[in-house]
């Protein structure tokens, strides 16, 4: 980990001002940020971390006018165990409950979950041994020429075939959720279009404050990973109402029309994802509640 400047932001405005200075990043639960820093995974890591945990009023779950409203600092565990979330958008509670391990869910926040870095095995390699396209490095995409077992089966975005690793992201897109930030309110589908290293389109000085999820639709979330105890989704499927969105198969949550998908860029390593995706679609649809 680099010698870091650590700032406790007094307010959202203060946090935004700190970010605007450059080289800074928000720290919520720190579960993703700290491991990135400790692993020296990129040349673009922040030198200032802006702690927002002590800013009040950013951790809540409430229902308001047919909308489930969740503060960005709400932990994944709180969402997984919320009876309000379970009754208003079961898929979101199901997704939060299968993120990582109990320890990480206790600390990790929903805001952090939708703003994390990709989990590509090359991207995450410690000491930045693979300075790839996603990091702005010269190495191109190592997965493309190497091991694509965990990667996109629907092509590349900006020369990168990493997938969106967030369990909550497909649910938010399927539910037509809105992501409120210090700058604007995003449609979830737009929010998760990648711009830089992270898995979304946020500006460097933009902070997520609230997630708004329309309620009243039946839903279900299914996740597939090699290891059940804690793992990122290799493929996941969210069904909310009549919308079906896959996770783990593309740079962003991937919307499905019809009952099945056909991979457009599968490799010998990741062809299996198509079979899994179609199985999950079938099973999630059968289990909506």
């Amino acid at each position, binding site marked *: *980990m*680099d*010698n870091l400047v650590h700032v406790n932001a007094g307010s959202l405005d203060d946090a935004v001002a700190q970010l605007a200075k450059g080289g800074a990043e928000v720290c919520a639960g720190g579960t993703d940020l700290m491991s990135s820093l400790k*692993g*020296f995974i990129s040349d673009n890591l922040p030198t200032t971390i802006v702690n927002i945990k002590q800013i009040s009023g950013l951790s809540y779950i409430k229902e308001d006018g047919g909308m489930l409203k969740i503060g960005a600092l709400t932990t994944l565990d709180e969402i997984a165990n919320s009876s309000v979330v379970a009754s208003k958008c079961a898929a979101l509670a199901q997704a939060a409950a299968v993120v990582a*391990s109990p320890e990480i869910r206790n600390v990790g926040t929903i805001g952090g979950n939708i703003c994390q870095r990709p*989990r590509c*095995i*090359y991207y*995450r*390699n*410690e*000491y*930045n*041994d*693979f300075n790839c396209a996603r990091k702005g490095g010269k190495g191109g995409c*190592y997965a493309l*020429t*190497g*091991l694509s*077992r965990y990667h996109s089966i629907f092509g590349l975005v900006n020369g990168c075939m990493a997938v969106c690793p967030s369990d909550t992201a497909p649910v938010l897109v399927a539910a037509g959720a809105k992501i409120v930030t210090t700058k604007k309110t995003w449609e979830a589908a737009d929010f998760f279009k990648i711009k830089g290293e992270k898995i979304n389109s946020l500006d460097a000085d933009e902070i997520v404050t609230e997630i708004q999820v329309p309620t009243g639709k039946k839903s279900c979330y299914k996740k*597939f990973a*090699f*290891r*059940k*105890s*804690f*793992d*990122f989704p290799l493929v996941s499927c969210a069904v909310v109402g009549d919308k079906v969105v896959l996770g783990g198969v593309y740079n962003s949550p991937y919307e499905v029309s019809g009952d099945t998908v056909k991979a457009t860029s599968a490799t010998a390593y990741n*062809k*299996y994802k*198509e*079979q*899994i995706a179609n*199985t999950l679609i079938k099973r999630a649809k059968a289990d909506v509640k």
Partner: protein
Amino acid sequence: MALPEMKIVGLDNEAAQKEIRSRNMQSILTGRADYVNDRKMAGMLWATTKHATISHGTVKKVDASKALALPGVKAVFTYDDITAGTGAAAMFPQKTVLYWGAPVAVIVADDWYTAERAINLVNVEYDVLPAVVKTTDVVGDDGVAVENAPLSGRLADTNYANSMPAERGDVAAGLKASAYTKTYNLPWTTTHQHAPIEQYTAFAYWIEDDVYVYLSTQNIHGHRTIIRNRLQIPLNKIHCFNHYCGGGHGQRLNNEEAAMVAAISRKLGGVPVMWRCSKKHSMLLAGRQHDDKGIFTMGCDKDGKIVALDCEYWTTNYGATITPIISATFTIPNLKWVGHGTYLNQPDRCAWRCVNDPPTAVHLTMAMDDMAEHYNMNPYEFRKKNIMGEHDLDQDTGNPFCTKEVNECMETVVEKSGYLSKWHKPGTKTLSNGRLHGIGLHAHHDSHGRVNGNDRGAVVLMTPDGTILTENGGSKPHNAPTEMNIIVAEVLGAKVTDVNCGDYGNTDVTLNGGMHGGSSFTGSCGAAFYSAAMDLKKKLFTYAITREPFAAEGAKVEDLDSKDSVIFMTKKPDVKATFANIMATAQPMAGVGVGWHAQQNATATVNAGLQREKDGFPVGHKAEWGSAAASVTEVEVDPETGEVFITGHWNSVGCGRVIYKDGVLQQMGSGSELQYAQALYYGDIHDPATGAIIGTQYTESQLPTTLDIDPTTNYLYPVEGDDHSGPLGAHGIGEPCVGSYASILAAIYNAIGKWVDPDHGACNPDRVLKALGKA
């Protein structure tokens, strides 16, 4: 040495066993166990590793100027600084890079993170050479060597060596005479780093010309010798310590880091230096299980008895020797083995938990299950026709086995699991939940439990209050000291609770009796402690006959015996004195012993061979060591996702005489649960382009957690036998359960009707789907 009439204290005394175990556990669970990483000293410096980012080449130039400019960085050491001129090939940092991740420099700084930060500031220039990064670069799937493959640089002129071919009988004639023969092209098995728990660490400082080294190893005495050889100083100037060791698994043995950190500390004026591996470096630098491939031709007579087996074998280990699973489990009159060590530009492989068993077990199981099908038998029936019995002699040497429990182990798991009523033809049973049901069987004789203890030594001390201390060369966990304590208690006639561990993991006060290799410890070091306890007992009784009440009786040493820490006259049991009474006036007493060796090619000097008569063979007759294991696994396979769910896993192990029941169950439990990992989860992940291991984080390498393995599906059956060369009839059980990798794969085969190709990794769902033709 004939063994005395035995009544094993440990077996009788569950409460004492639990107490011993909880003594061990408490220190670990409360964080009081002291690992090398916990060492702190005023003025200490921290060291980390700069690793190579090429797979093959030579280091041309190391430019450390930017790193040295970072505040807190004290020094950067390369091969030229540490090794050049010492006569050693490489004392850690390498000049010739043979794999991605090899150490090329060591950075020393005021603190760990500063050293780590400096890694990417050290600039290394290489002369890059062509690399062989995949097994298919050197040998095709058909077993044919690749022509004009680049050289890995590990050997001067070849990428693979024929190592230790073996043959008995006449294989060509045997195959010709067989009623049915078939050739099996068997897939590459799993490779992975198998001891990722405690990161590699070494800590050294000098006082005058004495060096003190703490290291995370199983083998401090071996390391002391390496340090002596590298630094050219006498052994009595080298003091090596290791108290706790987080998982050894046969690969924390003879590495260079201790010598390196001692050399660096000396260069820095003797200041304490802590060299520590990051997670990634630990993953790259630690030895890993080799992956193996075989092409077997098996021939059987008309009844399904094996007549001949011709094995050609490739392994990424560098010693492709035949294993007892092939040579000593089944009756195979004609057997040929040609093993090829395959040399790649990949991190070093080492023995998988001491043996080659898991890969070979899988391969033999694949061939045998297929043979069984040809003969319309189930896999048990086929094995039953061929398995060796308790009294069979070694097929190569004609020697008796110290113990041979493989048939009993197989019968045990077959009965306990209900195998015969559950087995069905492969790929024919779908359950009501849509999953496919399967059950698999495996049994093998293996090389664990060996008693190669003639280089082992033990010291047992009697304290003035009549309690006893064992001085143990190994590190503390692993239960090994407790087994030693029970052996000592039994031989001395002491209460188990009167025997405690003295110092351990300390070369200054222990003999080389302590390498705590689980597989051989009870046999080899146990033999040393047995001898030491005998020595002490003789001294104690010799002194006792000069004291009352024995002096008044004119007792001789042979008139005495002891039990529960009380010495008594065998013919007059009321004439007795406690150890404490006798020791109250005695000078301190120590017993010293060395181990004995069972196997025929031993250079043993002490009590080689059988310790008791077996099947008409006399004491001292040469004997073959061994242990045995069998397992049955029951699975459900989801045909739509390829997921495998283990619903039952029955393991039995031939344990010799059980002297520490808890320890046996722990060893079996961890060994068999580990096989869930090996078979279904965990494997090295390589970049196919560079050969770099990229699964260096636990998230990616898929090491399962306790939540992935349901221990209630894991049933353990120690099969007690009598090892005729082991102390008190016991032998180490080590990890024979690791063979159950094979029964898991066999169960998947039975479920889906196809063998899954592990493809150097585990049978992850994508590989199961591939076997099913769905990916």
